């Protein structure tokens, strides 16, 4: 390491230490850059793959108001994807490259989106549980040490908490509707509860990247801390909904000041992660098909832009 590099690294470390933001113009260790690219890309991919399970209900939303809210929500996810790919671009990697990595199966997206949305209530359950877990994960990221990512997260978190309230409201309406509607809501919660707990990633003792990420202040809390926080949040919300959570071991622990909860089926988690969830193949095929079927459109836009440039140049020359 040259002396110049050592000086840069010290500057970087001081920024981190002082809880200040690292910006694209700043020098940063290669590991930091790689970790951020991996994390931001995975996050961006999750937003765009996440459009599918909810998008599945756009044409079948049961009222025009719900349809409008759902379209707006899925549109927000596309927008979040855009912010996040832009944040990643500040680290020197283009959206097209990241999409190629996604399509080649070389980068991941959140496993939660590999479960199917079987009924309308799933849209509510995703809003309440999945967006709820996402917010729990993401709120600390608003203070992430990398500036562009932190700023994208501020904007995203604001919208996500809106989405979570909408999901809660869908479930509330169902659980206070007809007996069939209440059963539909309970069934959706039963199916989405455990996968939402898995969204925080493996238990701390198995988490590969956590320690370094915490040191770099990319991450602020461990997986298990965040998971506990989430459980503590949703238990009273489930009561307000009049729905139960499918965990017989769930109960308040006055000593810990937290809810205890049952064992997570980590085998299922790793199976889905490996590609063997109910919808992994479907999600990737849908995504790849949209990309491939859109290739001629993107090429046309490029060709047109080039022609326009050419014309402008000729006009100037004339």
């Amino acid at each position, binding site marked *: 390491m040259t002396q110049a590099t050592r000086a840069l690294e010290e500057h970087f470390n001081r920024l981190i230490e002082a809880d200040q933001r690292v910006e694209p113009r700043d020098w940063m260790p290669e590991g930091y850059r790689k970790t951020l690219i991996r994390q931001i890309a995975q996050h961006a991919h999750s937003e*765009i793959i996440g*459009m*599918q399970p909810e*998008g599945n209900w*756009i*044409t*079948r*939303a*049961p*009222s*025009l*108001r*719900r*349809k*409008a809210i759902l*379209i*707006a929500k*899925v*549109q927000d996810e*596309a*927008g979040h*994807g*855009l912010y996040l*790919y832009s944040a990643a671009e500040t680290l020197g990697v283009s*959206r097209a490259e990241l999409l190629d990595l996604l399509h080649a199966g070389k980068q991941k997206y959140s496993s939660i989106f590999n479960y199917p949305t079987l009924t*309308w209530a799933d849209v509510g359950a995703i809003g309440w549980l999945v967006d709820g877990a996402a917010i729990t994960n993401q709120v600390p990221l608003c203070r992430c040490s990398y500036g562009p990512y932190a700023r994208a997260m501020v904007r995203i978190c604001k919208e996500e908490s809106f989405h979570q309230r909408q999901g809660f409201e*869908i479930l509330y*309406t*169902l659980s206070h*509707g*007809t007996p*069939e*509607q209440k059963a539909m809501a309970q069934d959706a919660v039963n199916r989405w509860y455990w996968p939402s707990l898995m969204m925080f990633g493996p238990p701390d003792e198995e988490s590969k990247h956590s320690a370094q990420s915490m040191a770099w202040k990319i991450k602020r809390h461990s997986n298990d801390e965040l998971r506990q926080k989430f459980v503590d949040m949703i238990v009273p919300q489930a009561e307000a909904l009049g729905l139960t959570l499918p965990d017989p071991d769930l109960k308040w622990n006055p000593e810990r000041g937290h809810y205890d909860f049952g064992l997570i089926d980590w085998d299922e988690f790793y199976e889905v992660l490996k590609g063997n969830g109910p919808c992994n193949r479907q999600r990737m095929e*849908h995504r790849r*098909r*949209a990309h491939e*079927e*859109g*290739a*001629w*459109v*993107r*090429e*046309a*836009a*490029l*060709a*047109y*832009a080039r*022609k326009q440039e050419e014309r402008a140049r000729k006009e100037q020359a004339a």
Partner: protein
Amino acid sequence: MTGPLFEYALRLGDDALILAQRLGEWISRAPELEEDVALANIALDLLGQARSLLSYAGQVEGAGRDEDALAYLREERQFRNVQLVELPNGDFARTIARQLFFATYQLGLYQALATSKDATLAGVAGKAVKEVAYHADHATQWTLRLGDGTEESHRRMQEAVDRLWPYTHELFESDELVRGLAAEGVAVDPATLRPAWQEQVTGVLAEATLAVPEDDWRPTGGRRGIHTEHLGYLLAEMQYLPRAYPGAKW
């Protein structure tokens, strides 16, 4: 018998509703993320217009039907949209051709309707003009890119324009009902919108190096509830939940 104003509000509302439904099918399938956002945006605008117009229709009718009763509990033969908006999306070129034809029509319509003597229609139209101007611009930009882009995009865009052109005639058909309302200063006679539409659209097509199709076939019937065989499938999907759970609130 329902009155002409009810019927007129349905026509406008159904056009917006069915096109919003079709555009909603695109979301997560667009050629790039920006277009997922743009198509969702247009769908949302149209859905908003549809909700206002169908609510108003229900109010005018006075039989207690709200926007959802009208959207979800009518049968195919009671829908009043033009056939253009119910056609399957096809590829991106077809969707853009339909957007160009429809948004240009709707922009002229709403601009004129914004001065309607009917305060509600004038309000809905006035608010929507800005939205629809964006829709028309979006479609125009893409028509130029696809028409004057690559060989393949040109071929596809020309095919799309040729295929959908026959369905544009129905947009400008007038009948006794609409002429009556137009005479009262309430509605806009669609026939009056044609010259400006023709000029605008043929101008865009020319700039996009696309040929304007010959007028030959003129499919029609939507305003009388005669649709293509595609609408039934769209409605089966759209209306499923309220049909399956009669009386439930969502």
